[in-house]
């Protein structure tokens, strides 16, 4: 067994340990009435088990990281798979730190699913070690990416705590407008998370079944000097194509429950690299996410937030707010250093300018400005509590857009291969 195989095995071990840890935390939160122990003892016991499993899982994750580094010859943070697995590892680190400060046994019930989703998302991307392109071949790659991800990881923990806080305070007995709005948006946040899970389920289910469809797409590119070159590219789909790429022909199409040709073509403005496939992926995610959500709703027979809410009543919303704020406060300087200052230093060395308004850079700045607005707002009255929790949730959306959305939607210097 070589280093890279060993590394992938460690990753799988970490993944299962995280799942086990999540289950323990879920039991800690939800199973208080199952045993005849006192509720507090139950929570503390299962919370400890969950934390222990998470810590061992994290060690396995670290093993994955360092053996891959050793086996691959460079730090594994250079493509989407490697970056997302690293981010997952960083979130675990942030979670462990915050857990050690506050010893809140239930935070894990929200932080672990987040980590699991992120590393499962990582696995959607090709996991092979790829050699570095010239721009990435610099030790600032290590420094910049690792610190930026660590900062973002603390924002992620802030997000998990804020989401808990929102579910904790949402009041389903209220019938007025404000109350309804709070109910809707809290539920909607959960729905979005389930759509993400739906995406993962769809991708892995069809991948497991070996599904594949291929199109040939003609792509006309106009070079800087005005000459047009046309190039025929193959576009491979892992999910049954509901949308075909713009300007394409079917090469191979396995039919799927009666679907034997695409239902429509991607619009012409979606002519970017793999835009059609991305749109198709989004449609599948919404479909399978909605199915999953519907199923869960049927099981719970009430909004999911309303189903989780009663299990959180013995935590103080103020504690959650404090955890969320503190995680963000810890993350902010780290993020500033990693995602802005180190990024500038590296950009100066690699691309001759410390700042070039590249979409990824701009979105790092947007994230920074957003969290500084959050911090300033918290200085004023009326912006603590639920509002600030919403800001923490939105802030993490901005982070995820910066990390993933920019790559999928906007192309720039930082683009890794998309889904």
């Amino acid at each position: 067994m070589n280093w890279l195989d060993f590394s992938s095995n460690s990753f799988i071990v970490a993944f299962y340990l995280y799942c086990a840890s999540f289950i323990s935390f879920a039991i800690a939160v939800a199973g208080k009435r199952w045993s005849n122990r006192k509720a507090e003892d139950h929570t503390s016991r299962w919370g400890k088990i969950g934390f222990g499993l998470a810590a061992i899982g994290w060690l396995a994750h670290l093993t994955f990281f360092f053996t891959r580094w050793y086996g691959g010859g460079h730090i594994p943070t250079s493509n989407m798979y490697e970056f997302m697995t690293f981010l997952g590892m960083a979130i675990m680190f942030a979670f462990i730190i915050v857990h050690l400060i506050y010893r809140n046994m239930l935070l894990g019930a929200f932080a672990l699913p987040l980590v699991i989703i992120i590393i499962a998302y990582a696995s959607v991307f090709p996991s092979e070690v790829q050699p570095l392109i010239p721009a990435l071949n610099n030790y600032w790659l290590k420094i910049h990416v690792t610190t930026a991800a660590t900062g973002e990881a603390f924002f992620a923990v802030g997000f998990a705590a804020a989401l808990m806080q929102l579910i904790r305070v949402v009041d389903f007995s209220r019938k007025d407008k404000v109350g309804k709005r709070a109910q809707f948006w809290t539920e909607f946040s959960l729905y979005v998370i389930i759509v993400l899970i739906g995406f993962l389920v769809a991708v892995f289910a069809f991948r497991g079944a070996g599904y594949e469809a291929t199109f040939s797409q003609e792509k006309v590119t106009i070079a800087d000097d005005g000459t047009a070159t046309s190039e025929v590219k193959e576009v491979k789909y892992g999910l049954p194509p509901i949308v075909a790429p713009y300007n394409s022909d079917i090469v191979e199409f396995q039919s799927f429950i009666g679907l034997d040709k695409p239902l429509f073509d991607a619009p012409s403005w979606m002519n970017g690299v793999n835009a059609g496939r991305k749109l198709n992926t989004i449609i599948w995610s919404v479909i399978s996410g909605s199915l999953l959500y519907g199923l869960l709703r049927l099981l719970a027979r009430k909004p999911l937030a309303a189903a989780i809410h009663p299990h959180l009543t013995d935590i103080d919303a103020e504690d959650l707010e404090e955890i969320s704020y503190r995680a963000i406060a810890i993350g902010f300087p780290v993020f500033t250093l990693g995602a802005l200052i180190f990024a500038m230093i590296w950009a100066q060395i690699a691309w001759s300018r410390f700042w070039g308004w590249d979409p990824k850079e701009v979105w790092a700045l947007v994230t920074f400005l957003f969290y500084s607005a959050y911090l300033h707002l918290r200085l004023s009255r009326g912006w603590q509590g639920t509002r600030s929790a919403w800001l923490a949730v939105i802030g993490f959306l901005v982070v995820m857009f910066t990390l993933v959305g920019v790559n999928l939607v906007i192309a720039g210097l930082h683009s890794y291969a998309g889904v």
Partner: protein
Amino acid sequence: MFQNTKCECGHQNPVGTVLCESCGKPLDEELLTDESALLEMRYDGVARRSQKANPHPIDRIWNFFSSVKIAVYLIIITLVGAALGTIFQQENTLINMTESSEFAAYYKEKYGTAGVIYHALGLSRTYESWWFILLLVMIGTSLVVCSLDRVLPLYRALSKQQIRKHLQFINRQQVVYAGPLKGDQEAWITELGKQLKRKHYRVWQEDGALLAEKNRFSRWGPYINHIGLIIFLLAVLGRGIPAWHMDQYLSLYEGETRQIPGTNYYIKNDKFTVDYYTDAELANNQKGTKVVKLYETKARLYACTESCDDPLNEPVLKEVVQHDIHVNSALSYKGLQIYQNSFQQRVRFISVHPTLTNKETGVQIGDFDLLMDNPAEKYDVGQYKLALIDYYPDFDLDEQKRPMTKTREPNNPAFVFQIKGPDTPADGEIYIYFAMPNEKSKVYEKLLNDSFKQRGDSSGRFAVSVENPVVDGKMNNIKYSEYTTFLNIRVDKAMPYIWFGAAISMIGLIMGFYWQHRRIWLRIDDGQLSLGGHTNKNSFGLRADVAWALGRTGIEVSPKSLDNRRNGR
């Protein structure tokens, strides 16, 4: 509205004071009415300039910029503006376009109607637009004003603190404890002080009262951060000073030397190399594709020492530095930075080494060097003298079938020589030579030389050609450049200030976020202990400190029960 600014403790406070500077009793009418509400502890309730009662227009501007609310608006507008700029490509990424009409056409063609609107709104130049710069300037102004407005009052409030505070002040803090105290009160206070010292508090004691404080310096964190940001923003604006900033691109084929416009420097591309990863090095899903491992320009930088601006003389150049420029490794010389930007695979002639032969006798008369750029006018070949009387770098025929050159680039160079020697007529023989070793130019060469012969300008004896043009599949006796390298040349005198500002800012952030200013006040009135604590962040930590110290002195409380906010909200 008349406000009595003299506190009951006898201290005269400036107008606008919220909490008495001396004893901390709330002065603000609103604060006095609701006794259970928590106190607003920012700047310890001292008056700031922006809170003057009758603002003058200048004060209004001052107030505008010192308001955190306005700052948040500014930050959010900037954030949204910056994000809008990423929807479509920015104009400055389209290096090869300059005209406004070209850009308009590009956005229309590439993005359709949305692109037209985007361009018309000026969003295609978001980051250079006046409104975006104005926003940055306003944030900068706001940073200066808000810091000036707050830092001095805060300094005053923190440097002269009274130990014994008003009861209301203590009871309305975020962390409170109240309870009876038995036994020797002074001894207990001293003991508590000792415990707090073990937690690194500085402790002051006055009969029946105590003040403990730690990490006061962290209160300066936000201001230091803001100062760093101000320096950073000034440096960014400083990049607008022309002499501070230069940014240009140069393309160089191999062997070419060019002046860097606007400077005394010349740069030469000695050689350009590209390395690709081998299939064995690539991941499975990449095999068969070309992935660049390294591309590099071997460059030399020269400084001009003499006849630099003299159009009649060749400049005298002195080599100053040599560097292999590649991505992540720039050539750097006295503030001038030369970066590898990109490259293009484009064959370009540099020179040929042809031979003059007498076709009749088959004798090779001699060979010579022929440059494509600025070829020499005279060549001595054996006993013959060749004069270059015409040169068409990019040969073609115009409508009247007359020779002409399409461009200045040597894409199909043709040289017209006048050959003089022992056996030629006095005004020599004319010969046209095509340097490109391909069929088409050889056909032209023959055709034109035949017509010279018919006209009587040539005997048709001579031929100029490259011997063995191809050896082992490689061009021989021909020098050409395979790649053109694009270099980015920069001067950025603002950089040191940028890094300095960023460093200051970082120091401020670390000070402000990883330490927290914590203060604990207590006083004992008739056996009744009142304790209040305040921190600018992390009241969890403060509660833990207080509960720990109280526990050590015989008062067991849970940290949570000290939290006053839970009742307050």
